[in-house]
């Protein structure tokens, strides 16, 4: 699993980082985005739904949101 540090970034920057990383990965790979902006709880899942990827879990501990994504089909 690949970890992506999106701490302190405000939306949509975490989404952009996730997007650019996901575009480098292949189907089935997992990506963990570690974020601090609570907005990612909505924005990353929305981005994944639109682009055909899957959010496996969102964990919130202290001030961090850990969003686990499974890459779907990339064009």
């Amino acid at each position, binding site marked *: 699993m690949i970890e992506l540090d999106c701490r302190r970034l405000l*939306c*949509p*920057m975490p*989404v952009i980082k996730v*997007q650019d990383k996901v575009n480098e990965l292949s189907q089935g790979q997992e990506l963990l985005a570690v974020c601090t*902006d*609570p*907005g990612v709880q*909505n*924005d990353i899942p929305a981005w994944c739904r639109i682009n055909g990827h899957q959010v496996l879990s969102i964990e919130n501990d202290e001030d961090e949101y850990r969003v686990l994504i499974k890459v779907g089909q990339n064009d």
Partner: protein
Amino acid sequence: MNNLAQRKAVALISGGLDSLLAVKLVQEQGIYVEGINFYTGFCVEGHTHAIRKKDQSKPKRNNALWSAEQLGIKLHIIDIIEEYKDIVFNPKYGYGANLNPCLDCKVFMVKKAREWMEENGFDFIITGEVVGQRPKSQRKETMPIIQKDSGIDDRLLRPLCAKNLPETMPEREGWVDREKLMGFSGRNRKPQIALAKQFGFEDFAQPAGGCCFLTDENYSVKLSDLWKSRGEKTYELDDIMLLKVGRHIRPENNYKVIIAREEGETKYLQGYKKQYDSLRMTSHTGPMALLDGTPDDAQVNLAAAIVARYSKGRDEPVVTLVYQKKTGEQQELTVKPASPEHVLPEWML
């Protein structure tokens, strides 16, 4: 039209109602659409919700993503923060009422979208522009400037006002039927609202003014102040993000104090403690503050007194604060809170 010949359009998605409708109109004609959304750093989107606590009762959502989901299209969000600086510093066509370089901005975005379109094998571009809707960038005379300067020419379709404009390539080639496009103009929003209703869109975003903070007078004042204090037009992402947050007070040209207005902002400013020197009340409840610039000791004390003025200890003879350098080094300060007449109105940005 058969599927093999299905034409592809890339739409500029701002998150507002107009781009939502523009895409829908074209989708209805069998065109395949994907969206593109540019992030300049000045966008109103999302982060104000993340920062300000009072907004947190509203659902947090990114309107561009929301629009794309409503439309069932893919959305590509593109970071143009660095390249965009030149547009803000040197707009060929000048600024609007505030520091908004709308016409240059439009040209730039259409140009970037054209490059994307060519790289990805798409056929044309759609925008939600409406003739006469905004003072400068959407006048009938400026529409051709956007087409020419961006290099897109007649491969740019504006479905909401197409009937008021010359025929474009997608219409001429028969990819879209001009008769099914709209002829909206001016600032009246009723036709858009009616069309939204017809398509069954609810809960859409209707940004007042513009899509970014550069149209905001207060924000523009703070940005001009930043340039003036630095002696040149320059900014980093942190600078322009911080202009959206807190009270900005500049007692002298070499430094300013950024004071949180409520808990959400305090929390947000805390994230910058390694980039900026900061002040935090210890004797009383009070806001968090950052120091931007190079204040000397006397200036740090004045800043502390100003911060104390916004704390619960404002009427006490003395209060204490912690002054923390960005290196982590800490120092306790004891100051007399500034009285209102000591904080000059011209310091307030």
